[in-house]
């Protein structure tokens, strides 16, 4: 009886905790927080100034908002490297080349200490 009522409390939406369970294979993910950007035209001869502007958007797009992980509950975001240079395609019809995003690298892991039932990233 008490157990039932207890689960009732745990589930109570108004209290809004993040505890829950899932059972799928374990996983990890890597995410980036971008701190800088540059444009590398390579052989394309693309305009540097223009490329730089587009790479600002492209690198921001590459960045993850870590609160999207931590706020969901049950995951920890751990910094594993600072100022990594990550090369991504500029993905734009007006210009070719690559963007060099400077990014801090994070590992997202299941927070199995507080959430022993949780084993997967999604």
């Amino acid at each position, binding site marked *: 009886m008490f157990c039932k*009522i207890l689960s009732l409390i745990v589930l109570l939406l*108004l209290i809004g905790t993040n505890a829950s369970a899932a059972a799928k294979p374990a996983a990890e993910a890597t995410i980036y927080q971008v701190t800088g950007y540059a444009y590398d035209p390579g052989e394309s001869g693309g305009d540097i100034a*223009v490329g730089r502007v587009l790479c600002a958007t492209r690198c921001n797009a590459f960045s993850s908002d870590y609160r999207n992980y931590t706020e969901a509950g049950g995951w920890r975001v751990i910094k594993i490297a600072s100022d990594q240079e990550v090369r991504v395609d500029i993905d734009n019809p007006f210009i070719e080349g690559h963007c060099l995003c400077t990014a801090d690298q994070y590992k997202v892991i299941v927070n199995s200490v507080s959430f022993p039932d949780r084993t997967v990233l999604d």
Partner: protein
Amino acid sequence: MKLFLSLLFLATFVLPFNLYAAKVDDLSPQQIRQLGERMYREGVLPNGEPIQAFAAGDIPVEGTSFTCISCHLRSGLGAIEGTVISPPATGKILYEERTTSIKGNEYVPSYHSYAVNLPPRPAYTDETLAKMIASGVDPNGRSTMAIMPRFQIDDENMAILIAYLKTLSAELSVGATKEMLHFATVIVDGTDPAEIESMVLPLQFSVDRKNSLATASKNNDRIARMAYNMLGPDLLAKRFSLERWVLKGPSSTWRAQLEAYYKANPVFALLGGISHGDWAPVHRFCEDKQLPDIFPQVDYPVLDESSWQTIYLSRGIRQEGEAAARYLAGMSELFKDRPVIQVSRNSRRGSALKAGFNASWAQKHKTPVLDISLPAGVALNVKQLSKIIKTQNPAAVVVWDDASALPALQKIAQTEGWKGLLLTSGTWLGDKIWTLPADMRKKLYLTWPYRLPHENARFNISLKRILSGRSLDDFNFEVISKSYITNEVLGKALKDMRGEYYRDFFLDSIDMLPDTYFPLYERLSFGQGQRFASKGCFIVQLGKGENPQLERRSEWVTR
């Protein structure tokens, strides 16, 4: 010298020479409300002149920018946490002593932080209150001028302002009683039943849970203690009710239906609601009754900036069009003199996207967009459009249509010699978004007003908590997510309200919430009078492979 100045100041104060001055005793309650409200909300005196205010003691500032409402909020109940920190300025609370704890609520977070963050003081009287507002000295003799400006208001007008403060949040709003909080949700008849269920289920779930908890805590001390510490005795004991107000027939008849529902059960607030078509009559009804509506799920919200009562999740369908324009504007220097072509389906959805695009584009650009309208039932004519593309060489082609346009878009993307950006609405493609042929994925850009699905998946665990064991697949994912958000925001706001169930305070409490990360939207943000919580949209492309993911090509583009 200083003494002289202040004497002069006093003299102007005392001189009873104000043509517009009205004696508070001669005014009707409505007049007091009207004149007082104007001072409180707009910083304007009854004679139409701005109130003179002094910040940090003696720096003259316009009372019209330092309005009482901007700090003490519309309800006058202030905010202790969040972006604004200010104490209540309502007569009821000012004329009570403030102590370091609130009896019976010592350990309830919202009451506790209220009691410990605001200094104790004796009850105000009319005199000490007038002194406080005019000179920034509270009844303890403490100066409050570090944040609170002082206001130069003569005695007559001060009396009106004080009379107004006494009416602020003085009577509990209807729909809130000692035992109950009544809610309703508005459903437009004809909406897909699966969507209705997905909208109602989370709301009903939390109402039921709340009521079971109220009962359980009555019978079980241990539960009572646990729940008490989170909710406080008042909220804990309250029961909730949720009515479904189904609107039938043409929208011109909704008003009468709403009036009838409301007369039978004047609820405290509306929660959610659903309509893929009209919503304006419900919006207007809420404004007229001063009835809050939290997150109705509608495609076409009313975009009136001066409305107060309805908080929408976003600006609706239109927001994708706005984001598309801003994304293109960011690279428009590359367009040289090449035009933008916009092809839109002549339907409510197509028109909303087009209107959003055009409005947003016009903010930055004078260059016109070449608009092509697709009448209902007429397919996109590839030949014609290709010809236009060849002659105009547009920098971008924006197409607002459903998935039936995909084969045409595929051909257009391959128009010989054309290098430009092809953009469409990701949500309008529905499930077809996942089946875009490989050769289109690099070429087609899509608006996406939500968090990317693969990054959202981890929030599913939160959603599953409210499904009572059923599968998420049984529900409309977007609808149930939005309803889940409604619940969470309702819970957070109620917990912050310290038992003060005033509709304006309910809305103020939501406005003061920090940015939040819930399922579905990348980010929701609130703010005083802000009525569209999700302000952004991504521009994405579909990635490679058999189980492709959406890939961001932009940040969360905001208005």
